[in-house]
């Protein structure tokens, strides 16, 4: 089989629910072997897109190709999906569940058992195979979900909000596992609301808003669209000093730090600021992904 350089290709894909468009004319190409982040506000169409890729929903218009096949069903055994939060039988023991999901992906027990042992050990769950799912903590449950998705050694792994609700230690373990599975050649697509994670982990980021693609590219490509229009500063007076200052278009207050967009010359703004308070930090930079996200999504959320 020839190597496929595009793991997922969406061409003009649209989906409506009760006449309301959830995804509207979406075109997207996800390169093989990449980590691709889906971001977007709640209800923007992320999960609908992931579900169409998984063939859980059929598009009203457009075409979806997964691992080189337009019949996404054909690639089923090579694709794993982790829905947000749930997706596990509460009363089933961990090993039995992992074997069951793995076997449904066409793997034999001889292939599965070593993979289960390896992933449980990697995620600090040695000896947890006989525990029932409903006795596990939320973090542990999420790790079992992840193992369930990867034991079948998929070529494409789709994760819906894999890091939500995890403590930093578990989030770190899961992040390392995602990177590990990418190293083994798996293409990873995940949706997230954590912009810092998307910035740090993703080769490419795709943002969907009101069913339409609004961002698609590497972090650098996305930030380049906005230029150096952000000033990150820390002052003795904090955010209140910025009230009523000339040229200030928006202020994002993080408490100890403010991100400011100004019209006009940043040097002039610095002089103006220094005349009012002691400036500890002043940095002209590109906007963060978080800032870009908020700029796109805020008008509707207001």
């Amino acid at each position, binding site marked *: 089989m020839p190597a496929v350089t595009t793991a997922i290709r969406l061409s003009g894909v649209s989906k409506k629910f009760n006449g309301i468009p959830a995804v509207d004319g979406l075109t997207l190409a996800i390169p093989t072997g990449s980590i691709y982040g889906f971001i977007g506000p709640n209800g923007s169409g992320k999960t609908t897109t992931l*579900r169409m890729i*998984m*063939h*859980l*929903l059929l598009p009203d218009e457009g075409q979806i190709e997964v691992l080189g096949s337009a019949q996404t*069903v054909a690639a*089923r*055994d090579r*694709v*794993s*999906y*982790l*829905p*947000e*939060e*749930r*997706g*596990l*039988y*509460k*009363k*089933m023991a961990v090993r*039995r569940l992992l074997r*069951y*999901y793995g*076997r*449904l*992906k*066409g793997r034999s027990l001889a292939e599965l058992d070593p993979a289960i042992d390896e992933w449980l050990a990697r995620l600090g769950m040695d000896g947890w195979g006989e525990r029932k799912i409903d006795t596990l903590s939320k973090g542990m449950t999420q790790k079992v979900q992840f193992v*369930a998705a990867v034991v079948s050694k998929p070529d494409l792994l789709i994760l819906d909000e894999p890091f939500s609700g995890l403590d930093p230690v578990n989030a770190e373990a899961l992040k390392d596992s995602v990177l590990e599975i990418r190293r083994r050649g798996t293409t990873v697509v995940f949706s997230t609301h954590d912009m810092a994670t998307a910035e740090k982990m993703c080769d490419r980021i795709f943002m969907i808003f009101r069913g339409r693609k609004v961002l698609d590219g590497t972090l650098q490509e996305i930030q380049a669209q906005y230029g150096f229009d952000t000033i990150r500063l820390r002052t003795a007076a904090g955010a209140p000093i910025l009230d009523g200052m000339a040229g200030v278009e928006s202020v994002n207050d993080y408490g100890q730090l403010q991100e400011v967009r100004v019209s006009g010359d940043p040097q002039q703004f610095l002089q103006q600021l220094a005349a009012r308070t002691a400036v500890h930090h002043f940095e002209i930079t590109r906007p963060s992904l978080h800032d870009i996200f908020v700029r796109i999504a805020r008008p509707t959320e207001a």
Partner: protein
Amino acid sequence: MKNKALIVAVSEFTTLVQSKAFLIGLLMMPVFMGVAMGVQRFTRDSTDIKDRPFVVVDRSGALLGPLQAAADAWNRASEGAGTRTQPRFLPSAGSFEAGDEQARAALSDRVKRDEIYAFVEIPADVLNPDTTSSISYYSNHPGYRVLPSWIEATANREILNQRFRSASIDRAVVNRLTQRVEVSQLGLIAREAGGGIRAATKVDRVRTTAIPLGMMMILLFSVMSSAPQLLNSVIEEKMSRISEVLIGSITPYELMMGKLLGSAAVSVLLAMIYVSGGVFMANRYGYGDAIRATDLAWLFLFLSMSVMMFGSIFITIGAACTDLKDAQGMMTPAMLLLMLPWLTWFSIINAPESPMSIALSLFPTATPFLMLMRIAIPPGPPVWQIALGVVLTTITAIGFVYAAGKIFRTGLLMQGKAATFGEMWKWVRAD
């Protein structure tokens, strides 16, 4: 490619046989029957033995003596083996005029104070064959029938004796002449291979009632113990989004068929356990030959059909609902269909060839249960009725599985609200 439906079936089977519901199902029938037998024995052995003193106002002057004598005999008989099994009847004489309401009220007060249990007024003309009066029995225990029935039987026996005597007719002769002749219900005389004739045997209620009913109950309990579990299983998968993971690996139709196969396997296992128990008991009580291999073959065939039918129905309900509360409303018609054989078996046992029995046993969801009963009651229904029942049930089962597949495919991933019957019909008709 490995058969994924089979993987689902094995998982469903393992989950179901490890569940409490299976254990309950396994014990349900023996416990149910044991309790029924126990209650019967208890009610037989634990009769009310409280003394029943009562006052007899005998205006005929002819019945008090015989009643007292009969009561003595009853009381002696009730203490036969040293343990009393019946209450003692203790009649005593009373007297007041027929129009004396005060006297009646006084006796009523004694009943209320539990000094006596009841009082009886026997009219003066009770021995007159043309009388229209009746014996009056007063008590504040209208539900207790033993004493008034005994008084009625004893008084009437004595009244008849005295009337016959007055007419100079010997009661013993009358009894002999009016002796009833019993109809003995027999099977047919059989011709043996060597040309001999085997005498007809008396119809045995165990063979004609208990065994057909037992087979129907095995079938019913086996289906009831597994098919409704499919509803819980589908709803759990929907609510926990497990269905999304599964549909990422397997087609909805394979998933549904796997569930049906798993459920059928559980039913078959249960039925085999019940049948083994039944055969053991039948052999123990000398009825081993009454359970025919062909009847058992029918039982397992009908079992498979009913699991497919009812399993599809419960899967459909699970897929159409988002939680168990939603499912309750839709469950009612399904449970009624499942309970139909239980509600109608009595008329089938009594008249297996009646038009009503034939019609009920050809109603597809009831056929597996009721046709099985009719087959097990000798001589069984005509072949055309069995064939028609099997064909109709098979068509219905296929139709249900087909419709369930369509509804399951769409409903499984639907969240938020339960589907209406109209929506489900639309899904069935969709390509």
